[in-house]
């Protein structure tokens, strides 16, 4: 009985997530006429006119590549910066830990909108304006506060006993970290990294301020999309979604992991 309930819940929730996405697919692959009619058709006409516009737009492949590179760079950078901090928060009790947490969060509590000009000037002066690295640095700064917290939580979830056991068996502190903690924390770290990657991929505001000739895909598509005709909005949305969905597909195995850590 419980099993049936569980499956029922799973199906319901999956449906709730998938149905809106299906609507986007229908809209993206329908003719303008269908999109403007009411009631809407549940099935696409399989017209490629809207999608074709996006795929052949000048500049789309480069923008897509930019987005992917920036997102991956952001993921890596953020994890590298967050790991030490997360470990410190998880393993040590020290004055200033809460202050650190709050301060780091405070950087994100202030709307980025208002920081546009100073940031743009800063990037221009440092020569990283309109570069892939520049945007990646910015996105890392945006993701870092959250990833630090997530990584801290991940490390905290791995019992100290495991590390101590490894040290008893002759590992150095660093070695214990590498061999005992990291593998068990891997799924959590992958989750945190995924968050950073997707945050970067979808981020449009800071990216639009900091790029000019090298826009990321959301900048390229979304700034015009809010005013584009409806069929294009569907196609543009689907076009933006596809790479992200692909990424999640590739990464999900990492997120599931091999099973919880053991004390052995």
């Amino acid at each position, binding site marked *: 009985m419980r099993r049936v309930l569980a499956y029922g819940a*799973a199906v319901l*929730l*999956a449906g*709730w*997530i998938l149905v*809106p*996405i299906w*609507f986007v697919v229908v809209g993206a692959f329908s003719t303008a006429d269908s999109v403007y009619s009411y*009631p*809407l058709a*549940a099935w696409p006409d399989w017209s490629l006119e809207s999608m074709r516009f996006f795929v052949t737009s000048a500049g789309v492949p480069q923008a897509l590549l930019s987005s992917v590179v920036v997102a991956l760079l952001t993921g890596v950078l953020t994890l590298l*910066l*967050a790991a*030490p*901090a997360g470990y*410190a928060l998880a*393993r040590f*009790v*020290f004055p200033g830990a809460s202050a650190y947490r709050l301060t*780091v*969060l*405070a950087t*994100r*509590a*202030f*709307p980025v*909108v*208002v*920081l546009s000009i*100073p940031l743009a000037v800063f990037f221009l002066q440092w020569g990283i304006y309109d570069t892939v690295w520049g945007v990646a640095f910015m996105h890392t*700064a945006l993701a*870092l506060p*959250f990833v630090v*917290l*997530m990584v*801290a*939580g991940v490390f*905290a*979830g791995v*019992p100290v006993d495991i590390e101590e056991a490894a040290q008893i068996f002759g590992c150095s502190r660093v070695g214990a970290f590498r061999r005992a903690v990291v593998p068990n924390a891997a*799924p959590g770290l992958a*989750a945190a990294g*995924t*968050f950073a990657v997707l945050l970067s*991929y*979808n981020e*449009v505001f800071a990216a639009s301020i900091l790029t000019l000739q090298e826009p990321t895909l959301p900048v390229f598509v*979304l700034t015009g*999309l*809010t005013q584009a005709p409806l069929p294009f909005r569907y196609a543009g949305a689907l076009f*933006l979604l596809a790479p992200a*969905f692909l990424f*999640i597909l590739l990464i*999900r195995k990492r997120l*599931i992991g091999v*099973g*919880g*850590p*053991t*004390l052995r």
Partner: protein
Amino acid sequence: MSVRRSLPYLLLVPSVAYLLIFFASPMVQAVGLAFTSTTGEWGLSSLSAMVSDDRFWPAVWTTVILLVVLLPIQLALALVMSMIVTGRLRGKGFWLYVFLLPLGVSELGAGILWYSIFVEQGWLNTVLQAVGIVDRPVLWLDYREPWRVIGTIVVAEAWRSTSLLVIILVGGLRAIPRDYLEAADVFHAGQWQRMRHVVLPMLRPTIRTALIVRVVLAFEVFATVIALGGTATDTLATQANRAYTEFQDAHLASAYGLVILVVSLVAVGIVLAALPTHKERGE
């Protein structure tokens, strides 16, 4: 021993230095803007202009309502989803994939999508009419029914941003050592008891992290609110955004930013107080 004492601080250095470089100067400038008037004098005039604006208190109210309604809903949904994914059901990979899909949807994209669902000639009405529940399209986005509009925003946001909680909770659930769970089984504990006495307590730090992340992010959401509520529904974030981009008033925008900052930190403080830190050295 002194190395040990200073080790945590040393570990914090990279992230602190990084954030300082990017945010220190701009934030100081921005906060400074909040305390100067549009003509450049120091004082509280920008802040008082903000508070005396007709839309200020409605914006605060709406922001708080959205947060208070969304958070429990999202936490509950996320818990169920992560249990499904880490439990004993078949097809775990598939469920996880589906539940994480909204992460790949940008805020702007989600706003466009849910607008097309709730709009008068949109998907929801198409379905409702086809099934016969209504015989003419319902105006879901009718600003004259504020609770209706808030409802649509809640649905859209729950759809869009629960996946983040799922990903955090799954990470936490996965880190619970199998041995603890197996120990519970040895004592013939049922699923529910195992949940309550083993899983949830061990999950506490993760839940706290998830809530904090969600709370801070919730305050910056405005794309969905603008898409569904238009110019008739305000939250602190939409006001900050509007002040800057439409009215080109950096002072007013900063003032709102300051309020958002304070309110977020207060909200985070509440979460931290509700779920106090145990010494996180394992239990």
